[in-house]
């Protein structure tokens, strides 16, 4: 028993089984996948199709209210691609998402390891705190955060004043860079709980015997981390990193609410708020659809290397 249990570590990341194929089981995967497929096609088929089609049309408020939409081919895309403002926003969004995603995963990993190394009580306290942060409605957390950085009576300025820094009336949102740093802090704060809890869940799957064995062998904590633990949770880490990249590129609510509180909106746009401004704001749904498609392509491009290596791993 024990011998089989210690063998897995080398093979765990590549879990391809080679069971004897019995006739009935050839169809099993199809049945397992069917519910997902049916669900996704039913719920997303039309909306996504509509969006693709609309991106090639001139579709504004008039069309929403009954006028037939006009086919304009690639005109929306052309306007977008030649708009320097879009590329500024793209650049900003990419930088933002990379900084946030990397910070989130690093901090999340740290906290997950911390959770593993403390007493049960400590772990529970930390988990509950993270969960509270995660569960807090975005409206409430954004309100609290905007209070914290408020230039007039914000907690941050008040605390800084207390320790002697002259921060009275300092406006954290008026400069675009400062604004984005605040936004990054908020987004990371909101995203870490999920990452930490997921990585921790992955850590608990590790066999203590392996870790014991490593300890007996005299591997120091740091080495143990790098050579044994990390490779084992690498699948979970790589997934959450990819997802953070995708989500942070799409971030919308936090930026929008922060823009409402301060800063010059047109200097702090990221792709999410930009699409919103085009769509709901200006009623230019054709253009908004085009931007969404562009964003999809962009996300694919950024994660291409990643996606490809994941796909390779699959075979």
């Amino acid at each position, binding site marked *: 028993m024990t011998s089989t249990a210690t063998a897995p570590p080398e093979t765990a990341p590549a879990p391809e089984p080679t069971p004897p194929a019995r006739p009935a089981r050839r169809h099993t995967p199809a049945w397992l996948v069917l519910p997902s497929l049916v669900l996704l096609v039913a719920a997303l088929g039309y909306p996504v199709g509509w969006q693709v089609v609309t991106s090639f049309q*001139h579709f*504004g*408020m*008039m069309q*929403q*209210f*009954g*006028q037939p939409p006009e086919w304009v081919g690639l005109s929306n895309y052309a306007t977008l691609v030649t708009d320097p403002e879009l590329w500024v926003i793209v650049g900003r969004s990419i930088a933002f998402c990379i900084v946030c995603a990397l910070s989130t995963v690093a901090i999340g990993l740290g906290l997950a390891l911390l959770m593993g190394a403390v007493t049960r009580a400590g772990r529970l306290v930390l988990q509950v705190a993270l969960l509270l942060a995660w569960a807090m409605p975005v409206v409430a957390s954004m309100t609290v955060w905007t209070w914290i950085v408020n*230039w*007039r*009576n914000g907690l941050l300025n008040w605390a800084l*004043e207390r320790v002697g820094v002259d921060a*009275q*009336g300092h*406006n954290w*949102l*008026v400069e675009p860079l400062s604004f984005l740093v605040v936004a990054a802090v908020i987004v990371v704060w909101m995203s870490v709980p999920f990452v930490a809890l997921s990585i921790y869940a992955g850590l608990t799957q590790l066999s203590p015997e392996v870790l014991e064995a490593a300890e007996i062998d005299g591997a120091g904590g740091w080495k143990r981390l790098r050579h044994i633990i990390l490779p084992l949770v690498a699948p979970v880490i790589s997934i959450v990193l990819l997802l953070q990249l995708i989500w942070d590129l799409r971030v919308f609510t936090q930026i929008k609410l922060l823009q409402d509180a*301060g*800063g*010059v*909106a*047109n200097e702090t746009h990221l792709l999410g708020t930009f699409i919103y*401004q085009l769509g*709901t*704001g*200006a*009623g*230019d749904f054709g253009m908004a659809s085009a931007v969404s498609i562009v964003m999809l392509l962009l996300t694919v491009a950024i994660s291409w290397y990643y996606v490809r290596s994941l796909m390779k791993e699959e075979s």
Partner: protein
Amino acid sequence: MKKTLGLAVATTTAALVLTACGGGATGSTTDPSAGASGNADKSITLWLAGTDTPKELRTYLQDTFKAKTGATLKIEEQSWGDLVTKLTTSLPDPKNTPDVTEIGNTQSPTFTNVGAFSDVSDMYQELGGSKLLQSFVDVGSVDGKQYALPYYFGSRYMFARKDVWQEAGVAAPKTLDEFNAAVKTITTKNPRSIKNFSGFFLGGQDWRNGVSWIFANGGELAKQENGQWVSTLADPNTVKGLTQLQDLYKNASKAPADAKDQTPWLYVNDADEILDESGNVTGKTSLAAATIMAPGWAHWSIGDLVEKDGKKVREWNDKKFSAFVLPGNDGKPAPVFAGGSNIAISKASQNQALSKELLKIIFSADYQKKLGGAGLGPANTDYVSSLGDDQFAKALIDSATSSKLTPAAPGWATVESKMIMEEFFSKIRDASDLTALAQEYDAKITPLLNLK
């Protein structure tokens, strides 16, 4: 645009004709004001935005509607920020559209121009005609036909710290020029030595308050030329206003460059009992301005901090605070942005006749007076006296007489959603050539003003 309107008019006329002939699935076949029998199982839906219309008024509408038509009135409250999204998806859908809806006056031109609303020109005289607030009627009209009519109006005026003004030795202004000079003096004198004290707090991006200086000098944001709307920021009168604004931004207001028009009353109130350890009042007081401009309802949030029934509230204090209308240079109040909303019938509604009955009730004398009683300016100017006669009601009425709305251009809502005016205003203070800046923004705004 003409083509759509033609289509819209034709469709509406056809619908009306069909209804009148008593055929088809649209509307009721019985006389809607017949009362009980025919309409007992019918109901229409009214969308109201936010909590502005108080409960008593809503109940009144429901009761009166039932008594008059026998049908039921359902009122659904939508939140302001999401109203446009919901109207965009629901109005075109005959199965789920609200029958009658409130709509902000900024959004009225857009929705009116895309044909979202029914033509109510035939009822216009009956509902009040020229007694209705004309600026509100304009944003809901196209080619002389009315679609969205005024529902209620608000207004904005100035709130000031009387005591600080006196300390600075400045008298109450009677003209706009006097106002400008007065607030600059207060800022320079800073009688209470408060850090970053503003004689007049005007946020760097606060165009909704700042636009009064443009209007007061005869300028406009946009106007219609040959059927097309153009942005007029660079017109000489507008630039005159912009110059005054620049002066104010440099010398009278220490507001942050990114402040908009939210919660300005915070700056004019005293702080509550804040003391640091030694009991000194440091520079960190709430009081940061001698004057602010705010919508009329802000007076509820201005005053001394007192405790009533265990709750902290603000109580107005006539010795410390004053409310006055921004004076123009021509002896009349300076034009300010009116607040308020319009009301309209959805074109896709299946209950056109009943919806019109609801409009009749809303524009009846009784309801209009109730609106005034609730602090909401009634659409029919005959009834403004129902607002009361305290200083706030007076200020509301006076400032509303020359108030203006955002341009009735169909694309104005787009300009607002792109925050172009905010951006423009944030650059006024440091611009070396205001006319050039204005021209730059005219070029950005004009293409957006007309629906394509």
